[in-house]
């Protein structure tokens, strides 16, 4: 009798946090079926979820992230520009959440000054290109995520073709000029840009809508100004926190939760502590 290679044959019932029974499937079974049926792994995950069978790795996302939303994530593509303090945490978060396609950009390699805050910086990765290291780690974290690593700087407004397939861009850069260029690209592509920045034990997050001009308000004419991060440093706390807010903003955009277009600036000061919203 031929062996059953259906997703249903590999599914089992597992209770979620509310005690409700739910059909789930293990990574190993999805990997095997992907090989046997010659279907790309990310497609296998998608097919499974479309049949109502949840990959076990996402069970603890429920019900904050529903099965329907998990499918939305698997069919979404996000670009993260800058793979440093903010970018590393954003990339890890989006990878664990199960974004279908991640496009990551950074020209640099890890150095010792990155060890204080950058999530993939360690003794073994020093000297290696950040995007390459992250691509390898992320494949281990979640093989259902297709990661495209671009070891380049985004410094030219004509690089908009690099963002043709994405629904959201995350600004995890650290220089005003590059942020202004990225905002111009996002405007050209008509894509929302999730801006984040840190200094000391604080930082801000804001969704910049295409051509709304607010990146210019944040960074225009700042070429000679001394930015706060040079005076306060950037310990790991603030990139980790601000990156989480950025990931939340990405989810809200992908899930269509921000229909009112709320794009207020969030500023968090962990030392005080305080969280404030500002209209800009």
């Amino acid at each position: 009798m031929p062996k059953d290679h259906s997703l249903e044959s590999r599914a089992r019932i597992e209770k979620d946090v509310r005690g409700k029974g739910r059909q789930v499937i293990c990574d190993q079974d999805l990997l095997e079926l992907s090989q046997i049926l010659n279907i790309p792994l990310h497609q296998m995950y998608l097919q499974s979820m479309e049949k109502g069978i949840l990959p076990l790795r996402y069970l603890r996302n429920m019900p904050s992230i529903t099965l329907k939303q998990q499918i939305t994530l698997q069919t979404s593509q996000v670009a993260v520009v800058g793979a440093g303090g903010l970018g590393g945490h954003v990339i890890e978060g989006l990878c664990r959440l199960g974004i279908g396609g991640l496009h990551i950009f950074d020209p640099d390699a890890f150095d010792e000054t990155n060890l204080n805050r950058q999530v993939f910086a360690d003794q073994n990765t020093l000297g290696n290109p950040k995007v390459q290291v992250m691509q390898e780690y992320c494949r281990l974290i979640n093989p259902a995520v297709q990661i495209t690593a671009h070891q380049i700087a985004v410094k030219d407004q004509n690089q908009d073709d690099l963002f043709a397939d994405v629904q959201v861009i995350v600004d995890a850069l650290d220089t005003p000029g590059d942020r202004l260029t990225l905002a111009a690209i996002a405007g050209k592509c008509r894509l929302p840009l999730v801006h984040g920045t840190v200094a000391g034990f604080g930082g801000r997050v804001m969704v910049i809508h295409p051509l709304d001009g607010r990146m210019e308000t944040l960074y225009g004419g700042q070429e000679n100004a001394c930015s706060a991060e040079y005076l306060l440093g950037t310990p790991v706390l603030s990139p980790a926190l601000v990156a989480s807010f950025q990931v939340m903003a990405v989810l809200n955009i992908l899930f269509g939760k921000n229909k009112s277009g709320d794009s207020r600036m969030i500023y968090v000061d962990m030392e005080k502590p305080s969280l404030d919203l500002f209209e800009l």
Partner: protein
Amino acid sequence: MKIEIRLFATLASYAGHGEMDSDGCLSFDGPATIRDAVLRLGVPEQDIKLVFLNGVGVSLDSSLKDKDRVGIFPPIGGG
């Protein structure tokens, strides 16, 4: 009139200047703008990037009224 002033990031170090009270408020006898408050605190204007009045972005020339809340930010760009 009494104005609440919030100084963020590097500007927090100016909070003890200009007779700011323990609630973070400055008192003015007559009319004043945000620039007047900034001058009293001794915050260099070139160190200021964003100014908010009651949570909305404004310029330093904005006039103040009793119980207004002012937020002032330096440039921030770390990533």
